[in-house]
């Protein structure tokens, strides 16, 4: 297996927590960025239905207008 010998030179007790932390921090950052930079997450989590949240898109389907 490629890179399988890495644990001969990196202690697993150090390397594995760093690897798992990197995954956790990266995914948390992406989700935090989405929640803070959009409005629909908050609306959706507060009970605004998906259809209402995407109502402008539905209107677009019938009338091909420019979306902003």
């Amino acid at each position, binding site marked *: 297996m490629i890179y*399988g010998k890495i*644990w001969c030179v990196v202690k*697993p007790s150090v390397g594995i927590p760093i690897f798992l932390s990197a995954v956790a921090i990266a995914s948390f950052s992406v989700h935090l960025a989405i929640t803070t930079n959009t409005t629909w997450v908050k*609306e959706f989590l507060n009970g605004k239905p*998906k259809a209402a949240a*995407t109502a402008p898109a539905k209107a677009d389907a019938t009338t091909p207008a420019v979306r902003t």
Partner: protein
Amino acid sequence: MSDKDKVWPTGLTEAESEEIHRHLIQGTQIFGMIAALAHLLAYLYSPWLK
């Protein structure tokens, strides 16, 4: 003592290192599959990307 039985500075042999790595890769694959499923559900049932 052959090279395969050499104990490296981390206290592991090559075979032990590769065993740990195999489990880590398997865990990553399972995590990835669960994440992909979660993103599919989010795409289907939330306004994400709509």
